């Protein structure tokens, strides 16, 4: 089954191409991360974002550089989409000094202050407070910055999310909650852990909700643009519920997945709902872009990422004396 090409509502080819490149960059980065793990060249584990690229890119393309995001354990896509450099990210994942966190954070804590990424978080739901507080701060400091809180549907199980959504709504804070529903909390289908109607939850706190196809980057971008405009205008928080799917395992080591999801399910998403294929198909069919130019983008990015990973592998580790630096400012 080939991916059906649908008109991606109101997408300009320029934006489409930019987003295609970003999504391709995430995809390629993640494939290298997987290789690094399989080649035992990366310490620890990593949670791949492959399949969900349209969410991070669609949302972050609706943000300014000085807007904030908070991210998750599955955070490489958010980090890249918000403007991070591939090489410094590889350095962080490899525990190198040139990494965004000087090797102290690793995959699950990567942060990019310069681009407003307040950090990945290894506590599910752990950044809901941070994002809401950043929105509070933007308002208190009189800026028109917006904060986006990315989280998986599993974070709907964490009470703190409801505590802060309540305050965000009460105080009309400029925060956008972006729920990436990729159907699984680790190895358990979300339907076994989530009662009632997800969209009704933020709504109950007076937060407007928009449900979008997380594989359609233009739909995500359009919804995010509306939510961000609302926040910037002082009209308060919004909640984007994105239907998506992780194509790989929960983490790089999660290879035998048959006990919790079927090969057929995985195949149908990969073949019919691949966000890159959907956007690429549209760019070629309706966006007036030639397959060649898409090919060129892919080749350029492949080269960029390969060079970055090679450099990162060569880069030095931090000085051992750094171990007790940065405990206190």
């Amino acid at each position, binding site marked *: 089954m080939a991916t059906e090409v649908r008109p991606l509502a109101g997408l300009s080819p320029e934006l489409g191409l930019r987003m295609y490149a970003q999504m391709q960059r995430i995809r390629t980065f993640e494939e290298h991360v997987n290789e690094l793990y399989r080649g035992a060249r990366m310490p620890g584990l990593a949670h791949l974002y492959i399949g969900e690229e349209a969410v991070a890119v669609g949302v972050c393309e609706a943000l300014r550089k000085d807007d904030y995001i908070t991210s998750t354990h599955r955070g490489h896509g958010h980090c890249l989409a918000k403007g991070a450099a591939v090489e410094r990210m590889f350095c962080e994942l490899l525990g190198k000094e040139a990494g*965004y966190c*000087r090797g*102290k954070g690793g995959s699950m804590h990567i942060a990019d202050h310069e681009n407003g990424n307040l950090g990945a978080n290894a506590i599910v739901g752990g950044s809901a407070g941070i994002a*809401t*507080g950043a929105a509070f701060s933007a308002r208190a400091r009189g800026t028109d910055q917006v904060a986006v809180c990315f989280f998986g549907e599993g974070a709907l199980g964490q009470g703190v999310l409801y505590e802060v959504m309540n*305050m965000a709504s009460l105080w009309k804070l400029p925060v956008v909650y972006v729920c990436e529903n990729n159907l699984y909390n680790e190895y358990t289908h979300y339907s076994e852990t989530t009662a009632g109607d997800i969209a009704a939850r933020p709504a109950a706190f007076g937060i407007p909700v928009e449900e979008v196809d997380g594989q359609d980057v233009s739909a995500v971008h359009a919804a995010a643009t509306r939510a961000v405009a609302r926040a910037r205008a002082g009209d308060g928080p919004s909640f984007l519920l994105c239907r998506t799917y992780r194509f790989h395992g929960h983490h790089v080591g999660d290879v035998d997945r048959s006990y919790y999801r079927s090969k057929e399910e995985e195949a149908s998403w990969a073949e019919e709902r691949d966000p890159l294929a959907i956007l690429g198909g549209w760019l070629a069919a309706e966006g007036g872009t030639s397959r060649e130019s898409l090919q060129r983008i892919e080749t350029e990015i492949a080269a960029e990422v390969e060079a970055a990973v090679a450099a990162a592998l060569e880069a030095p580790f931090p000085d051992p004396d750094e171990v007790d630096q940065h405990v206190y400012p």
Partner: protein
Amino acid sequence: MSTLSPEQAGVREISLAQAVNEALAEELRRDPTVFVIGEDVAEAGTPFKVLSGLVDEFGAGRVLDSPISEAGITGIGLGAAMTGMRPVVDIMFGDFLTLVMDQVVNQAAKVHYMSGGRLRAPLTVRTTLGATRRSAAQHSQSLHAWVAHVPGLKVALPSTPYDAKGLLKTAIRDDGPVVLFEDKMMFATKGPVPDEEYTLPFGVADVKRTGEDVSLVATSSMVYVALQAAEELACEGISAEVIDPRTLVPLDREALVASAVKTGRVVVLDEGHRSFGASAELAAVVGEGAFYHLDAPVLRAAAMDVPIPFSPVLEDQTVPTAEGVFELARSLVGRS
């Protein structure tokens, strides 16, 4: 002895509650990024009335009444701290720290380190400790040992109005997270505080009374117990030194060890539960640093290892008393 005497020019006697109120007012005035958030902190000025009047001067935008969401307000405080603000999060009772440990420990304490020094969280969490208010097991705990165990957090335990004001101002200006505990029973305690502005450095113990024969290392509420015990010991001809670390993190190990080396005998007083509490660390530090100068084992006076009971006849046994400390110290000096 940094404690001021009212005789000094420009020194007033005010309560610990007033001292805290002044510290917050001064910092709110000085720095527009400072704000206070908590339950019933605005019009009510907290159930202890410690914040009375602040909302009138600074408005509801900087002194915020929150929902009953300790984790949420701490998380919001943290996010604000990471993006240019200096929040003071009011956790009404220290017992409610149980609800904010993830925000404080997994998030606030670690963000600077995990980001390789690039992110900062100048967050102050103000809360309480102390029993004997007939408030029973969920409103009487002294949980400062928990946060003191977490790298990345600083922990302050003022015992006087002077220390409370100076340490709180320092906490608010610190670029990292600080948890500050005030003893609920001490809010009405009066002491000398200078008219002019001041701050107090962290990591500097304060000798509340000098002595030669035995050192009483005491935190927060226990400083008064130690001072009273010292009085009674004096009547017996035993000269007790009372030394207050004032901050557990950073800890002025040198000062504690120096006092122990001088006296050779040490009793540690802390209102947390005895086992695996702050008194253990203070005793271990002295034991390591002054071992060859100690004439007797380092003893501990702390809350009994029981949940704090409601009934006065039970509760009053759970917290160290001057009499008990007097006996302990006297036994050390071998006079009993």
